[in-house]
Structures are given as C-alpha cells and as structure tokens.
C-alpha cells in the first residue's frame, strides 16, 4: 500500500518543479565503538513550494538529514541539489545555494545582545543592508509573525512562543525559497503549538516557500504537510512517503476528519511495524 502511495506521489511530482533533490545520501559518524550509520541511501525530492514533514523516532536521522539540507553537516556520500544546483560539492558547501535557505531550530537561538528587530534583521545585516532598510523590513516581518510592538524588546523579555516567532521572522528575512525547520515547536506547550501550526500554514501559503519540517509528532506532521516522509533508525532510511490530500487551508477542526485519522493511524502502524 505504501509503495503504491509513493508511486502516486512520484507521479504528481513529475509535473512540478523540483525545490530540493536528495540522491543517495549517506551519513556515517566515526565513534570509538566503530562507525555509526546515521543515514543510508536517502533519496527524496521536494517540489517547489511543497510542504514536506519528516517524522520518525528519536535517533532515526531526521535531524541529521535536516542539518545536511541546511548546510551545517556534510554528507558522507550522495548529492543534495537545490533549484538544480549542487549544494554540497566534495564535502564543501556552496554558500550561494544555502543563502536561499531560511533555518529554524528547536531552540529559538536568538542573540540575547540584540533586540528582536536586530535579531530579525541579522540576515540582512550580513548582506550589507543599511540600518534603515533593516529596521523597516524587521517591522514588516514582526507584523507577519504577530510580534508587532515587541521590536525593541530583548529576547529574555519574551515567552518561548514569542521567541520562536522571532526566529521564524529571522528565517524569513531574506525571502528564502526554502524553509528548513527542525522541531521548531517541540519545546512549546500544546496550545501555543496548535496556534503556531496554523500561523505557519498561513506563512507557507503566503510566501510560497518550499518547507521541510522535522517533528516527532505524527498529527503535527500530517496537519502541516503535503507529504509525510517516515524515517526509521539504524541506519536512518526512508520507510514510506505518504501524501496528505486534505484541502487547504486546514483549520484545527481537520483533526476530527476521518481522512486525517486514517493517515495518522496508517503512519503509526508503519512506525510500529517490525522488519
């Protein structure tokens, strides 16, 4: 059944422009006890503007995969292309490719010495944008993520959810064509998380960015994604790719739909299946 789904998804993809293409990616960590195979033979295509969720148990390599996509970790083998251009060449990253990416981590990772506006404007600062331009853009971005009025606050004055909003605003600063998110709402309480998911869906719709979203919550993955990629550990492999056909925009009520429940249940079964 999953094979069938994967084929359907591949068919759909053929007609779309490719945002990210991962082919044959391996990641091996040397340790004292020998080598650890974190990822093995990962092949994945993410369409331009598509929202893909990566789910799996801890240790399945989903964060490793995202770090490779983010340019923070070199793959041991295989290639990563973004917009048709290779992102990793012989273990060296092509900064020009990664400049198009926006990253959001599990921790907001805001710099405590910068105000919210300065944090949000940091990517622009690194590109040489002037003070006034940064200020204007930061105010726009703060409005986008619902942080208007907090531009001059320091991160320590914000709650966890607000910090994560600021981190998302920072990732959006340079209008990235790809947004990579590593369990961005994992540290938030359930209510805040639901609200952030709704807002992320809207940001995705408005910006048209390609999103790869790592989470360990299957309902969250299904709620957000066009396709859910399920990874299994030791070594990290893609077990199945499940398309989510639920119409957008999705409201919180979608979780009570039969189709939503079926997809979640199907993914749970896949996750629990022993090889």
């Amino acid at each position, binding site marked *: 059944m999953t094979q069938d789904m994967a084929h359907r998804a591949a068919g759909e993809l053929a007609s779309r422009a490719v945002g990210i293409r991962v082919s044959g990616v391996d990641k091996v960590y040397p340790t004292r006890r020998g080598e650890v195979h974190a990822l093995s033979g990962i092949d994945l295509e993410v369409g331009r503007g598509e929202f893909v969720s990566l789910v799996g148990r801890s240790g399945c390599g989903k964060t490793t995969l995202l770090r490779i996509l*983010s*340019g*923070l970790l070199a793959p041991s083998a295989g290639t990563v292309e973004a917009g048709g251009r290779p992102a990793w060449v012989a273990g060296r990253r092509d*900064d020009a490719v*990664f*400049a198009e*990416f926006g*990253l959001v*981590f599990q*921790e907001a*990772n805001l*710099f*405590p*010495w*910068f105000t919210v506006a300065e944090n949000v404007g*940091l*990517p622009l*600062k*690194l590109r040489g944008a002037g003070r006034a331009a940064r200020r204007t853009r930061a105010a*726009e971005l703060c*409005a*986008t*993520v*619902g942080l208007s*009025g*907090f531009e001059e*606050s*320091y991160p*320590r*004055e*914000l*709650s*966890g*959810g*607000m910090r994560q909003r600021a981190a998302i605003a*920072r990732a*959006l600063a340079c209008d990235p064509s790809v947004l990579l998110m590593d369990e961005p709402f994992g540290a938030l*309480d359930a*209510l*805040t998380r639901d*609200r952030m998911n*709704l*807002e992320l869906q*809207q*940001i995705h719709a*408005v*910006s048209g960015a390609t999103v790869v979203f790592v989470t360990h919550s299957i309902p969250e993955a299904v709620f957000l994604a066009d396709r859910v990629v399920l990874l299994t550990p030791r070594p990290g492999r893609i077990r199945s790719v499940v398309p989510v056909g639920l119409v957008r925009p999705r409201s919180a009520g979608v979780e009570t739909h039969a189709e939503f429940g079926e997809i979640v249940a199907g993914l749970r079964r896949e996750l629990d299946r022993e090889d």
Partner: protein
Amino acid sequence: MTTVERSEQVPEQGNDAEVGGARPGVDGRVATSPGGPDPTGPNGESVWMRRLPWVSGPVMLALLLGGWQFAVSVVGVSEFILPAPAAVGSALAELFAGPEIWGHVGITLFEVLAGFGIALVAGVTVGAVLGRVVWLQRAVQPALVALQVVPKVAFVPIFVIWFGFGPTSKIIMAALLAFFPIMLNVMLGVRSVERGHRDVMRGLGAGRWATFRNLELPSTLPYVFAGAEVAIVFSVIGAIVGEYLGGSAGLGFLAVSSLNALDAPRLFAVIVLLAVLGSLLYLAVTTAKRLVIPWHESVSTAV
C-alpha cells in the same frame, strides 16, 4: 507578505497563556516573569528589593561608626590601637589640607589603572588565543597552574630588584594579579559560545569577521566584565602591597610611613581613603558593564 491573522489577545492585556513572559512592572520597566532569568522579581517585591541596599548600606555604616565610637569612649580602647572616628576624620581633613596627598593618590591611581590596563589587554588576548587553540592551552596548562597557585605577592621584592623602587614594579605587580581572573574568564567565554548560535551564523553563511562582530565578541563580553570586576580589586591590592614593601610614594607608602611615625589616626585615614578609592574603581567597572552589556542577566538582576 501579509500579516498573519492573530487569534490571540493583545499581549499587553497580559492574560494570554503564551505571553506571560513580559509585562510592564509597577515602575514601567518590563519585569521578567517566573521562569525567566529573574524568578525573584514579581513586581511589588522587586522595587523593595532594589531599594534595600540603599537603606541597609547607610544603616550598616552607622552601626560600624557607632560601635567604633562605643569601643573608644565607653570600653576605653587605647587611642593608639583604635583612634576615635572623629580623630580619623580630622586626620583625613589634615591630609587633604596638606600639599602632598593628591600626588600620593595620583601615583597609586596611576599604578592601579596602568596595571589593570595591561592585565586587560594581555588577559583578553591570551585568554582568547588559549580558548581557541586547544593544543596550546593543554601545553601551557602546567605553567599556568603553577603561576596561579604561587602567592604572587611574594614576587614584589624581586620586582623591586628588577624594576626599582618607582611605579614600574607596582604596575607589574598589579598587572600580574589582575591578569589571571581576566584571562581565565575570557578563555571560558570564548569556549562557551552557544552551539545553536554558531549554527545560526553558519546557516547564514557568515564570514569570520561577521561571526566575530555579531556573535563571538558580544557573547564573550560578559566574561570579560566578570573577570574585570575581580581584576580591578586585585590590581588595587597589587599596587598597595608593592608600595608597602618597596615604595617611596603612593597611598601604600603613606600608610607605612604613618605606621613608622606611630600616627594611628593618619594610618586609619589612609585606609579609609584606600577603601573609597577601591570602591570608586569597582563602581567604574560595574558602570561600564551596565553601559556596554545592558542586555545581560547580571545587569538586569543586580541592585
């Protein structure tokens, strides 16, 4: 890009589950909530806590002076062992009436500041290098530990032999004492740049200089100041001890010459002066810290 619809309440209303983080305090400042960096600071209490030192300081000073006067006039401690506060006061006035006092203050101040300055530059440089170059740090570790455990004040006679009785030997003593707290803190600071913060800069493709300016420098500054707060006190100690043991000018020399003249009130007056000088220098460092790193927790939760 349009504004995302916000289903939540306006944060200023303060009862939003998510927003609990920041809300204006009684005095208009934003106070952090429980769970934030300052868990002791719900609004009403923090005002009281902030004012407490301004009340307790004068009270303790009054108690000290009262007890002192009591010991002299009621218990009858000898004038030579413990001169009365009034006698010390008039000795102090006498010192300032004389022509030489500013010269002594100036020399000591110069020695302290020069020593502190050298320690700051050397400490930051060495600390930054050792923090980054791990093998070098391992290599010099034994020497550092040895230097650190040696009572450095014991070097004063050697410095006097090498650099003479002038200010140079005192400056070097002050610098040597002040160097270690700065160097060790900076070494720690350079290493404790958060990994997540580094990921942000790497993800943005930031170069070396941009990473230094925006990340490494600001995240090390709190450590520099933590070291400097200790170091300024140490450099006063270094300069004074230097003057005690081999000086011809400065407040330390003045203290020793008062002792030799068996002039207890003047000795006490010099010590009062040294206490004031040390406090002012410490205050200068903490003020600089407030101005340079206002965002840091140590600034927001202090007094």
